[in-house]
């Protein structure tokens, strides 16, 4: 029991253990709820809810009328679960801290401006959500959830993400000793 608790409190697990846990979780989601894991869909539901509360005319478009009505969806509950799970994990391992910048590496490349980081995250997040929408899912919703059924799209998506992500990272990190 003591070793179990010590393990739960550890700051880092092997990524293999984390991956197997997510694989088993996705099997449970299929088995118990006939659902696939995903993260990008929740933002569509939430964005629709917010827009609707501001003015119903904002959700008067094809997507919210015919594809997915705004609402508290399965994906939103899943996302809340992700936040809580990460929170408990971080609290137990004393990794929880209010942070405005990443712990490592960011400053060496981009400097310590919080504004710069937040603006870059904001614009990147727009690209991430839009790209996930076009592709049919994100790293969890398409790569992992598609991968568990060997959907070709899962592997094509990951390959495409590396085709832009790698040159960009190598360019940003050219001459940086980190």
């Amino acid at each position, binding site marked *: 029991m003591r070793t179990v608790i010590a393990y739960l409190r550890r700051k880092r697990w092997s990524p293999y253990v984390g991956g197997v846990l997510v694989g088993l979780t996705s099997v449970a989601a299929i088995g118990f709820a006939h659902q696939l894991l995903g993260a990008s869909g929740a933002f569509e539901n939430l*964005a629709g809810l917010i827009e609707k509360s501001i003015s119903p005319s904002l959700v008067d478009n094809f997507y919210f009328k015919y594809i997915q009505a705004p609402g508290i969806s399965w994906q939103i509950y*899943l996302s809340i679960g992700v936040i*809580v799970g990460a929170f408990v994990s971080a609290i137990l391992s004393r990794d929880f801290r209010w942070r405005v910048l990443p712990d490592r590496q960011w400053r060496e490349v981009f400097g310590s401006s919080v504004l710069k980081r937040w603006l870059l*995250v904001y614009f990147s997040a727009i690209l991430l959500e*839009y790209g996930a929408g076009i592709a*049919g899912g*994100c790293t969890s919703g398409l790569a992992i959830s598609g991968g568990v*059924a060997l959907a070709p799209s899962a592997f094509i998506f*990951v390959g495409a993400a590396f085709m832009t992500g790698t040159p960009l990272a190598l360019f940003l990190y050219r001459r940086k000793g980190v």
Partner: protein
Amino acid sequence: MTAYGYPLIFGFLFGWALQKSGLSHYDKIVNVFRFKDMAVIKFMMSAIATGLVGTYIVIALGWAVLPDVRATYLLGNVVGGLIFGVGMSLAGLCPGTMLAGAGQGSLDYLIPGGLGFLTGAVLFADTYEQVYQHIVTVWNFGNVSLFGWFDLNQWLTIFVFVEFVLLLFYLLEKSGFGRGPSDDLSR
């Protein structure tokens, strides 16, 4: 229970696993694109291999029916992936790891990240008819799996796929390739 209990539990496990594996940190994500830290690949391929075997076992036992396989429409999968890669490499996060980062107290994930995802979601919904509906029709193969696409034997394909994943892991561990400094467990 099914409306919110299950997704809360599954989400909890997912977020826990992401945080424990360190993927809620910027350096873990950006370093996979630099091939300096392969934790993301180890995590993702372990999840896919485990999920693949488990899913087809529960289906074979008659305990579950497979939900629609994620659709393959080549142009959209590629263009979406290209856009996604830029954002992921620049910010060092993706939708799932952003939520996990928010849970560990990273305000740069929660505030500009959350607002950016919502903005992207609004843009996607507003342009759905003009953009997505066209791109989805190009080279669309529907909800196919590799099994159906190439008419492969299911269990043999699963076996070969898992073998390939295990071989990849063996080679990564043996060579030490991509075992980045941020894999240091004490940090």
